[in-house]
């Protein structure tokens, strides 16, 4: 930090100059029009020459500090007096928490006034004479460098690290291998992927349950133009692994007029125009459920990937790379919709081994 103070310095002032001495920095020919004119002479402020003005400044600063003290008292009063659930109407902020508003403004005022007082003090009463400080070259002079290098060589030689190669190499070897221990310890951070991303809770015969009502869905429940969020039967929000399962298995059902469905396979995988798509976007995994019933487009709110549900959820726009997987559905003997199996391809965002 203070290394430059150790350098032999001819200047007795140690880098600090009064304005009267600053001429020495502008040692240039007097006839040079571009010369550094040197610091202008210091001009006194009102407060420097008028004690009345200085007194006024003092009073302003003290007032700010006193205001801050009062605001702190107000803060404590708010804390004690305002109930936490009190909602008050304050124009233009609206219906806000009285406690948050009271505490925040008093604390803000208390802090701001301390700052404003200190700065007003510094600006009006503390000396505003500028000081000139010399800069010193950061780079060490050659003799210092030579000295350090000599010392370094001496130290290195004393250690014999250069002479005894075996010693050096074995040490470097040990040092480079030892971090492996830490790396190995990270192995238990999580399991290996295996086939986890490929399979969901959907199986042949799994009933399709309405997410909103928790009731299994029948074809007649789903009318043209409607949108139904659904999940596989047997998955309960209170389950331990519910979030992991729903992150892959969430689906949405729409019903299209059969003549509106452009993709033949998609129509066959549905039931009488009812199509069941994974709602997990194939880009990064947000639910792409902004369904426009007239255009049959489903939009993802995160990055605007747009899928055409009437055309096998083909990507129309945005960064998603492939269609939303479709779940094959049918109607069971009791008249309920059920899955004909798991998704044919992994739902959700792409990954390297996805295929």
């Amino acid at each position, binding site marked *: 930090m203070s290394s430059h103070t150790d350098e032999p310095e001819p200047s007795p002032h140690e880098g600090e100059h009064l304005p009267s001495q600053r001429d020495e920095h502008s040692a240039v020919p007097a006839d040079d029009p571009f010369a550094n004119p040197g610091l202008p002479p210091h001009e006194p402020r009102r407060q420097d020459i008028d004690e009345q003005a200085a007194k006024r400044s003092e009073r302003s600063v003290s007032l700010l500090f006193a205001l801050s003290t009062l605001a702190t008292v107000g803060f404590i009063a708010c804390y004690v007096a305002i109930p936490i659930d009190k*909602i008050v109407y304050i124009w233009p902020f609206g219906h806000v928490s009285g406690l*948050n508003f009271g505490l925040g403004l008093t604390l803000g005022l208390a802090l701001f006034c301390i700052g404003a007082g200190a700065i007003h003090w510094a600006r009006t009463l503390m000396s505003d004479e500028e000081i000139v400080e010399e800069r010193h070259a950061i780079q060490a002079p050659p003799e210092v460098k030579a000295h350090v290098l000599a010392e370094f060589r001496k130290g290195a030689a004393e250690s014999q690290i250069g002479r005894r190669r075996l010693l050096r190499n074995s040490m470097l070897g040990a040092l480079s291998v030892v971090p492996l221990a830490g790396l190995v310890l990270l192995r238990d951070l999580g399991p290996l992927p295996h086939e986890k991303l490929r399979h969901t809770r959907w199986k042949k015969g799994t009933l399709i349950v309405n997410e909103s009502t928790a009731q299994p869905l029948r074809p007649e429940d789903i009318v043209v133009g409607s949108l139904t969020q659904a999940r596989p039967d047997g998955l309960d929000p209170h389950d331990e692994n519910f979030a992991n399962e729903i992150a892959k298995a969430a689906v949405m059902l729409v019903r299209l007029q059969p003549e509106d469905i452009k993709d033949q396979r998609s129509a066959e995988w549905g039931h009488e125009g009812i199509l069941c798509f994974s709602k997990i976007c194939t880009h990064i995994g947000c639910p792409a459920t902004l369904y426009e019933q007239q255009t049959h487009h489903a939009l993802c709110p995160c990055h*605007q990937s747009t899928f055409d549900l009437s055309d096998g959820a083909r990507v129309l726009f945005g960064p998603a790379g492939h269609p939303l997987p479709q779940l094959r559905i049918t109607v069971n003997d009791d008249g309920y919709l059920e899955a004909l199996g798991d998704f044919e391809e992994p739902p959700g965002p792409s990954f390297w081994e996805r295929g």
Partner: protein
Amino acid sequence: MKKLSARRRHPLAAFVVLLLALAATGGLYATLAPGEAKADNSAQSLAIEEGKRLYDVGCATCHGNGGQGSSDGPSLVGVGAAAVDFQVGTGRMPLQQPGPQAEEKPEVYSQEEIDQLAAYIASLGPGASVPEESLYDPAGGDPAQGGELFRTNCSQCHNFSGQGGALTHGKEAPNLHDVDPRYIYEAMLTGPQNMPSFPNTVLTEEDKQDIIAYLNEVNTSSSAHQGGLSLGGYGPVGEGLFAWVAGIGALVACAVWIGARSTKARKS
């Protein structure tokens, strides 16, 4: 008063009223059947007739003479009275100009005329009727349950507290701020424009009421924004802009004050 009305809207109350009404109409029908039915029918057919007249003037250009639709407007057969009440009652219809979507604007027809139009459209084919007030009264719903349903079915387009959001190619899901609960109910039921419908098989009547109760809690003029100004409720974009403009702006102003030269005696 509030308590009284809440009790009056006890779930069973509607049921009892319905039973009484059924019994009464049944009895009346048995005795006065021909006269009463005629009067009822004539009032109804009068409304349909009036509605047809209004329709022919204001709607038929796009929706066709018999509501069968044309290249400029969809068929209205089977959309029901609720759809008419929503579209015309919120001023979306009649359409001002073609565009990505029909915007809400001051309504053109009186409620009586809207009812007549609705009666006419309802006569074209069976569809959802205008809901009873007890179905969409926010007081009857559970806002917490409604919030869950809202985030499952609605927030993807309308934003987490119903501030509205963008759809493709200039379409948008409108802001639900202070929207009449009846229209929210009708919108869910009928799916106006590109909004999908949520028939009672998808969202039950209670579910719809819960959603209305939630919106009533979070997105009306009297909703609480505990933290202060809500900045439109659009999330981090508004917050970032505010941090830059107001936050950094104020702090740079402080810095300018700190760094400015103090006033000199000579100049003052």
